């Protein structure tokens, strides 16, 4: 699903050169749940941005679902991002002046779905996260946990193969965090590849694999199937 070979990212200013990622090799296959851990500033978010096509690598090769990203222009990258990837952010990143329906509608609009298809997908996604009755509510009218569920609904409405989550429970209390993780694991169990960047050892422990990044160098800590995965099995 996701194949990075010798991927590096260097941020350059006039006076300093920062190596955020150094020759990263990583392959994530269909159905996996991978946790990316590491201290602050280690390069985790840079990895996630490159994986999500939000930033370009300085060097190396990246294939997403078999497509070589390095050869694509902005339009094709955007289309691929829209079709293949769902994002869940720590701060939810919902658009405050759009109601839930319109927030989830955003990626579907860029996909070019018909009005009826969009409506069906939005209702299904909200049903999935248990907020079907809040269709016309605004983000500010929801709790943090509910907002994150909306963000997940928005991420999955287009049916992506890959879900990238950046500290998805970082702004939530422990009960809500457990709810969100349960939801994400359900999605993973149904076939969506899940890559979570996290500081939380509890979340890392639930993943099938841990990739640990320190100073831009990634170590793939091969783990067995997660406890959750075993439970699902």
């Amino acid at each position, binding site marked *: 699903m996701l194949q990075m070979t010798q991927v590096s990212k260097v941020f350059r200013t006039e006076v300093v050169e920062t190596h955020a990622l150094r020759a990263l090799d990583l392959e994530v296959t269909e159905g996996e749940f991978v946790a990316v851990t590491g201290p602050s500033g280690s390069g985790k978010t840079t990895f996630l941005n490159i994986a999500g096509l*939000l*930033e370009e690598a300085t060097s190396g090769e990246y294939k997403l679902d078999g497509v070589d990203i390095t050869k694509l222009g902005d339009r094709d990258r*955007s289309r691929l*991002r829209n*079709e293949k990837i769902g994002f869940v952010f720590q701060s939810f*990143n919902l*658009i405050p002046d759009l109601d839930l329906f319109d927030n989830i509608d*955003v990626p579907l*609009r*860029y996909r070019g779905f018909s009005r009826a298809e969009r409506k069906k997908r939005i209702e299904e996604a909200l049903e999935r996260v248990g907020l079907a009755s809040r269709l016309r509510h605004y983000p500010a009218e929801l709790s943090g946990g509910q907002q994150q569920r909306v963000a997940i609904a928005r991420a999955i409405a287009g049916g992506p193969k890959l879900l990238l989550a950046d500290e998805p429970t970082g702004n939530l209390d422990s009960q809500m965090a457990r709810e969100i993780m349960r939801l994400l694991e359900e999605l993973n169990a149904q076939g969506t590849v899940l890559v979570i960047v996290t500081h939380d050892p509890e979340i890392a422990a639930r993943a099938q694999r841990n990739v640990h990044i320190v100073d831009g160098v990634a170590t793939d800590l091969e783990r067995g199937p997660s406890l959750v995965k075993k439970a699902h099995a």
Partner: protein
Amino acid sequence: MIGYYLALAGRSLRRNVVLTILMIVAIAFGVGASMTTLTVLHVLSADPIPQKSDRLYYVQLDPKKLRGVDESPEPNRQMTLLDAQNLLKAKKADRQALMTGGNAGIDAQRPDLPPFPLDDVRQTTADFFSMFDVPFIAGTGWTAADDDNAARVCVLGKALAEKVYGSTNVIGKTLRVEKDDLRVIGVIDDWRPVPHFYDLNTDTYGKGDQLFLPFSTSLQINVGHSGSTNCWDEHTDAFAVGAPCEWVQFWVELDSKDKAAAYKDYLIAYSQEQKRAGTYERDPNVRLPDVMQWLAYNEVVPDDARLQTWIALGFLLVCLVNTVGLLLTKFLRRSADIGVRRALGASKRAIFLQLLVEAGVVGLVGGVLGLGLAWLGLWAVRHQPATYADLAHLDMPMLLSTFALAILATVLAGLLPAWRGCQVAPAAQLRSH
């Protein structure tokens, strides 16, 4: 997607009403001022006879002395009566007309309408009406034979016919001009070429002529001359045949460029002949401008109208620069929103279009408001003492131009902010959001 972008634009513009109003007002004032002055310029510089302005030519000769009162190398702006009569007799063009403006006393011979002076008199020759497509509502013009015989006939303008007779059904009636009776043979509809191209010596943007009579007749019944008269040698009567004075205009209609070239050759040959005969001192110096060239040569559009237009366009530019600043502020404030949209699959192009549509909506609303301001501006122009004031009206092309200008200007103003907006790095925005 345009419908979606329009909906987003509406939502975005409602989000910050004060900023939106500021932008719309800036565009509206810029467009309103520009369209007011552009409309005046459009009216003043319009082609007065577009269907044949490239086939009508004004004839210029140079019979001035080599040394004397007027040593200008330019040929004369008008013609001597002798030259005009010679060219008329030669009939070298498809059509030709000799003319001058005049004034006369009109006696309606009605107890309730005392004799009155009329300034809008055209003394001309038979081809005038067909050359300039004068619209008749009754009767016709006169013939070349009427010119030769100084026939006592005339053609009236609709306004004069209604004033004197209370009707335009007046063919065959008699009109007393000065002390002579002329038979009415035609009545023309309201006809006011703008500018008054066939005679720029009288009021360039004035009302149309109301009484037309054969030039030969006007000489016999002593109709007054109006317009300029320039003489370059001693004379006893400036208006006599052979006097060294220019005071008549001569137009020709030539149906092709080849004929125009041939006619110019004829004018050169005519000038050479006059020089050989001792009438001219100068070498042939002729011009044959068509209608628009003649108007340009005479710089008929007032300087203040051009100046006002430049000032208004400068004002529009200032308004646009302000709009660029406001749009830039508005779009960059939405970096977080743009970052989220980019992450969710919007390409740079999609964001660029979305922001440009928003700028276009501002332009459209600004255009509607600007149209109102232009209408108000033209109303103010119509109340100025300028002779062209009453012509300042918005026509359909200018109305459409107002919207086009508003939208084009705002979209142009939106290009830079939209481009900056679509360059927002999504990763940075999502991190900081």
